[in-house]
């Protein structure tokens, strides 16, 4: 993990993602092209997200479109109680490819207890997330 020091916005890069704190309560996660997320990646991404948001409750926008795969262990980790407590809502950006399958598996099988929705439009995803903090 190599942290990129930028004046604004704070950004960190992990093996599989680039995580940006767009606003104090809004985190954008961009999955790297062809990335396959395993449990260790999930943990690393979570730690980085926590560090960037300094433990605040946040809205999360995850762009999964470039992803190639995600293991069951990683999906299970993404719905663990710590992440549930930290997440106000999460929007998953998908396309018609594998990301759509991954997103549906996550919502259908892992059943995270925080609000999660799939979007093909980033603009709509952001608007939906913003609705939770108005």
């Amino acid at each position, binding site marked *: 993990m190599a942290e990129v020091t930028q004046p604004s916005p704070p950004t960190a890069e992990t093996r599989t993602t680039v995580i940006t704190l767009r606003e104090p309560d809004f985190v954008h996660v961009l999955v790297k092209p062809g990335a396959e997320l395993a449990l260790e990646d999930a943990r690393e991404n979570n730690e980085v997200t926590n560090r960037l948001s300094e433990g605040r409750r946040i809205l999360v926008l995850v762009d999964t479109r470039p992803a190639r*795969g995600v293991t*069951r262990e990683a999906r299970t980790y993404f719905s663990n109680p710590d992440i549930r407590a930290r997440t106000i809502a999460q929007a998953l950006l998908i396309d018609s490819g*594998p990301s759509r399958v991954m997103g549906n*598996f996550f919502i259908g099988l892992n059943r995270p207890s925080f609000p999660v929705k799939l979007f093909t439009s980033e603009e709509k995803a952001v608007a939906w997330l913003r609705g939770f903090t108005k």
Partner: protein
Amino acid sequence: VTDTQQPTREERITQLLDLVLQLAQGNLDQRVTPSLIGDDIDSLATGLNMLAEELQASIEAERGTRAELEARVAERTKELEDRLATIAAQAATIRELSTPVLKVWKGVVVMPLVGVLDTRRAQQMTEQLLEAISREQAVVAIVDITGVSVMDTAVADHLIESVRAVRMLGAEAIMTGIGPVNAQTLVKLRVELGELSTAGTLEAALRKAMARIGAGPRPRKR
């Protein structure tokens, strides 16, 4: 990965079909590697991989649960077997203690009975008494029922049968300690006094037995 190394569409579909076949055969650890194209075939590949993972996890969880249940059942079964063995041992001890036969003199045995006398215990009493008479070559068997609080007609009937069985062995049975309630029960059975030798107390029964075997106390010399 260069374009020249990318498998053709037909090859990718063949890979998916092979995976489906492997999964159908129960090889749930099989996976297919999606390409970087990100088309529908890759979506299917991703979905099949995730489906295989879910099936594998589900089966492993079920195996774990089953193994845990089997271990718990085995543990409980062992506990129950141990308890049953203890209960059986205790029951055997209680049975032996509940119908003791004492040899008080050569040719004389006494069976003091205490507590509730049910049919099973009465039957056991008969067996032990007959065995003791045979073993000790007893001539007189005293059955002391002073400590028997209640005796129903079935048990009383059994006692009478025991007395008859003692006679069949050539011995005499003397029943003692018959309280008012038990006396009434015996009367209800219309037991002939002639067939039942009785004594008011154990001492009287012993005197009677001694007289029967000719071993009464000798008169003191003056």
